[in-house]
């Protein structure tokens, strides 16, 4: 019986072998340039009714959306702009924007962000019959 990895590898080999991932052959016709975007949409629609494809698409999209929206939601809930937060943190607005785009913030970064919008970061370890609050200060390196 094949493992999942072997099956995936086999599937990838099929694409690679079909020249789909080979170099750019170039020399595209006017029609190919003009219809390129519409044809991508048509290709995506071909599997729109396939349950497995639809599930994978929905789960992946939901995961990305959750990451994008997390920090945006915190800031908006506090009614603050990126400019106001950048002033609080003494960093540029572009850096605040980059912080909001990240989906795997360092604990120190997240703690600073939450404090800048007027809150305090709390972490709770939840067990079956017990909850333990972890002091963020204990987790931060000295100096943070």
């Amino acid at each position, binding site marked *: 019986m094949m493992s999942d990895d072997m099956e995936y590898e086999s599937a990838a080999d099929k694409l690679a072998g079909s020249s789909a991932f080979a170099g750019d052959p*170039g020399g595209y016709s006017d029609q190919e340039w003009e219809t390129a975007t519409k044809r991508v949409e048509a290709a995506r629609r071909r599997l729109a009714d396939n349950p497995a494809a639809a599930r994978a698409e929905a789960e992946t999209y939901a995961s990305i959306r959750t990451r994008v929206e997390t920090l945006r939601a915190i800031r908006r809930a506090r009614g603050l702009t990126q400019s106001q937060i950048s002033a609080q943190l003494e960093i540029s607005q572009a850096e605040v924007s980059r912080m909001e785009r990240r989906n795997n913030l360092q604990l120190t970064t997240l703690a600073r962000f939450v404090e800048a919008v007027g809150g305090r970061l709390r972490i709770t370890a939840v067990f079956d019959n017990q909850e333990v609050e972890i002091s963020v200060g204990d987790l931060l390196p000295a100096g943070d």
Partner: protein
Amino acid sequence: MDIFFHPRFTHQIEQMATAAEHDEVLTEVFGEVSALLQALEEFGHEIEGEQPEDASHRIVSSRYELFALRRTPPTVYTPYAQGRPVIRIVYAWCEEAAGSEAAVVMHMGDKARLGNTWYDGVVRQVEETMIRDWEHRHPRRRIQRKRQ
């Protein structure tokens, strides 16, 4: 956010769709690729980041503002995500009228076996051929260069 597609990518996703109709595993991969395109259209720059879990990251070796959408992003446990299709979809940003931007999706590939050396050939091809052809066809939609 507007997205345009290079004919190269159009051919690739059409071939992937055809293959996916007869392969259960590729069917799921196709769904994930479709979600990445949807997220790019919906969130634009907001999906770009430097962390392993980000859906898109900047290609540092290019002189253009090139990014790659990531299917099966590497993690601390699977830094090179070997063994499964490690799909990367290379795209750029171009200027639009009134100061807005649009994404131009160029090329898709599987870097599972090559690791990050996959980018060397792809970046060269995108810079030397695909961007040149794009700008020839779309002189008002020039691809953004990196700021010095």
